[in-house]
């Protein structure tokens, strides 16, 4: 790999753009193609453009057999993100675990005594109101949203933004009863059953988790399942 190619890959990643790197494993020829360039590639090489689009969609790198030899198509999708609404106790282990699993984590909570640097060292914090914060983030298909406050004033606005986005995972902490009344409120706001079914509630896999760290494991497990078993 040429150093210039590596620098270009790192730049694309830093700017959160999707791209693939094609490397001919016989000649060493390299070509970095951004998702934004696919439309123009479509005109000259429709077959390749489709292969790249498919690899980006499934987030799977692969080797292509071509007339010029095997070409490795390496997918560079934007980083996974997790937005945690509610800087509560469970958010502390969840933020650390999600970071380890490769997510860029942001914790949103307008209550500054909760979202403090002392409680969340090294974590990106936002003290904006959740709907404003989430709208600013531009939730995409590489983003998971988890609400943990139990407080309709904070959780509901976040869920309303998340349900209108492509977020691959939406989860909301609360008992079955809390979740039922949550769905009632969202229904009154105009969301249909099919849309609301995207919310995982009560949040997390049913593994009998008790402590905040165990509940974080159950949530991250469910997020992983949504990410990896969806397609």
């Amino acid at each position, binding site marked *: *790999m040429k150093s210039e190619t590596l620098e270009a*890959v790192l730049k694309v990643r830093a700017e959160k753009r999707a791209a693939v790197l094609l490397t001919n494993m016989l000649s060493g020829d390299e070509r970095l193609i951004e998702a934004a360039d696919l439309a123009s590639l479509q005109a000259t090489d429709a077959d390749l453009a489709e292969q790249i689009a498919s690899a980006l969609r499934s987030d799977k*790198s692969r080797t292509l057999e071509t007339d010029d030899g095997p070409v490795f198509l390496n997918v560079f999708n934007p980083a996974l993100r997790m937005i945690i609404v509610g800087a509560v106790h469970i958010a502390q282990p969840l933020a650390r675990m999600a970071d380890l699993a490769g997510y860029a984590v942001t914790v949103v909570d307008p209550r500054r005594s909760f979202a403090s*640097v002392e409680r969340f060292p090294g974590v*990106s914090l936002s003290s904006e109101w959740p709907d404003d914060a989430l709208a600013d983030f531009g939730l995409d298909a590489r983003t998971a949203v988890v609400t943990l406050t139990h407080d309709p004033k904070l959780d509901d606005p976040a869920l309303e933004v998340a349900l209108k986005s492509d977020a691959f995972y939406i989860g909301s902490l609360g008992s079955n009863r809390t979740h039922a009344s949550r769905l009632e409120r969202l229904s009154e706001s105009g969301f249909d059953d099919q849309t609301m079914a995207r919310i995982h509630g009560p949040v997390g896999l049913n593994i009998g988790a008790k402590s905040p760290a165990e509940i974080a494991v159950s949530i991250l497990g469910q997020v992983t399942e949504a990410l990896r078993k969806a397609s």
Partner: protein
Amino acid sequence: MSEQQTDLAAWPDDVLETAASWKNDGREVAIATVVHTWGSSPRPVGSQLIVDGAGAMVGSVSGGCIEGAVVKEAMEVIAGAPARVLDFGVSNDQAWEVGLACGGKVQVYVERLD
């Protein structure tokens, strides 16, 4: 917006960032990439391992079973040998073959960072 930003560059396992920083420090670097897998294999296609001229490594291309052999090949590539594709698996009987405990097969592309 009121946001306290963290240092994303602090990700401990960002292999390509590390490759660039090693290169900037004047170290020779080879990059090994899983380009194909068959059956069960511990690391998915796209997984990368980087190696320097002294054999230091970051990242992984398996659960640890083939890294030793990949490092050896990588050091040859650093020393000037051409980039190469390595096959590892149960049915492979070449001299550098290292069995995968899981029974899968994996193909690894090793290239120098120029």
